[in-house]
């Protein structure tokens, strides 16, 4: 069974769509079932690496729900490596997802980055702080309604406690 079949057989109707884009497999799941999907991929399908995580703000694409998070799961041990892209759509108000940083160590920083840039909250994350921007930064700069020339003057030296 390939990873997509693992997901469709176990989650059934919670897999909203499965398609190919430029030759890569994409799967869309509901936010409620995402945690379960990640567990299935990690435990049963052998995709033990979360290789990337990208947020997308669909404001100018007219998407409802507005946000989308794209997870890139992979198994680099097999030849050829298995890859699966899992997409989750999130609403404009209070977008949040369960964290998977307990399953995938790389999710720790990747989720922090997504929170920093898009304001998507990862419930249960042990250390959801800003990572690329300053701690006092206001707003989430990769959202499409954030002004491109927006500037802050931040005087406080950042600290690590």
């Amino acid at each position, binding site marked *: 069974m390939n990873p997509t079949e693992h997901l469709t057989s176990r989650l059934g109707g919670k897999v909203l769509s499965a398609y190919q884009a430029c030759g890569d497999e994409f799967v869309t799941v509901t936010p409620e079932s995402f945690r379960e999907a990640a567990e299935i991929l990690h435990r049963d399908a052998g995709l033990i*690496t979360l290789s990337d995580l990208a947020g997308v703000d669909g404001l100018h694409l007219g998407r409802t729900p507005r946000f989308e998070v794209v997870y890139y799961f*992979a198994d680099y041990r097999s030849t050829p490596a298995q890859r699966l892209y899992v997409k989750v759509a999130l609403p404009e108000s209070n977008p949040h997802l369960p964290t998977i940083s307990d399953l995938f160590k790389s999710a720790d920083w990747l989720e922090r980055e997504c929170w920093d840039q898009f304001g998507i909250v990862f419930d249960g994350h042990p250390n959801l702080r800003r990572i690329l921007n300053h701690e006092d930064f206001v707003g989430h700069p990769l959202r499409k309604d954030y002004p491109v020339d927006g500037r802050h003057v931040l005087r406080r030296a950042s600290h690590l406690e």
Partner: protein
Amino acid sequence: MSANASHAMDEREPLPPDAEAPENLPDHPAPAAVEHPVTVNIGPAHPATHGTLRLKCVLDGEVIVESKAEIGYLHRGFEIQCEQVPYQHVIPFTDRLNYLSACMNNTAYCKAVEKLLGIKIPERAQYIRVIVDELSRIADHLICNGVAALDLGGLTNFWVTFYPREKIYDILAKLSGARLTNAYTRIGGVVYDLYDGFDDDLAACFKELDKGLTQVLKLLQRNKIFNDRVRNVGIVSKETALAYAWTGPVLRASGVPYDVRKDQPYYHYDEFDWEMPIGAKGDTWDRFFVRVEEIRQSMRIIEQAVERIPDGPIMVSDPAIALPPKKQVYNSIEGLINQFKLVFEGIRPPPGEVYSATEAANGELGFYIVSDGSKHPYRVKVRAPSFLHFSAMEEISRGYFIADAIAILGSLNIIAGELDR
């Protein structure tokens, strides 16, 4: 590569892919049990960080019991900048990701857009990309290995590696006009063809390189101090490396045979005769010598590519993608219209999304691009290998001496431009 600590180091045979993960991981002291903790701050501006990153360590004597990494000092909003400009204008931005091997970032980005457009670039352009990419990889590895030993006090090694590296930059400068930020590829091909005398320059460069590599091995392989400093230091198991999504030489040093060039071959990488070096233990020694071996393999690839490179165009001929030749622009109305149309309207890939991966010097460099059909990319996400490598730093430096943390950091080759984007 020899896994045991004996001095039979000349046999650096690549180990079989299923090499066992190391068992003797160091014992970590419990952070709570430290009587007099000392906090030491490394960076953001520290000679050993080679960029702006910060590591705050809690020490028990000389041993790191806890550390916190902070990044973002070189964050310049790469991804949002990409959304503001047409597709072609992103190429110079990508130079500044991993600025030690700029050509590879150009290739990675252009390959992603080409995948989105569904086009295939001409054969000659593919071979040229292979040649400049592998040259960049060699330069990148030379810098990494040069400064890795420099951080441990081996200054001579730095000169030995930087001399051939300058030769490579001379070639790239002659080829692209720029020494460091080359911006050499274009969507649909490359901008300049190989110049006359390229082969001679390459032969002279390889001679220097060969000499340099021999000197590096003679200097370091049996050097007692170097051995003590890097062997069994910063051991990263297969499991840890995979959990942190490591790729590239550092993953291969940990014993996982994954290379995008082998896994999803592009630009004829499957037709070249080359091997993938694999480490046995995943320590700093392995990471150092996997890079040395990769330089040798890249030289092999370049030699074969130069031999096989066909004649032909270096850009696609599609007028919606490639600018017309200047002769046509100045002498025919069609050429002029074509030039204006492309400059003003830009390249417009169909709406959709694409993820494209290439093997850059540090690992899998991926571009996730969302297109809305306009001339600007709607969203560009970079899968930057350094970001994922550095995220493991807190864990893998724990339990080692603070001087070892410097050795580990050097072997990870963290490039701040790519880390912070």
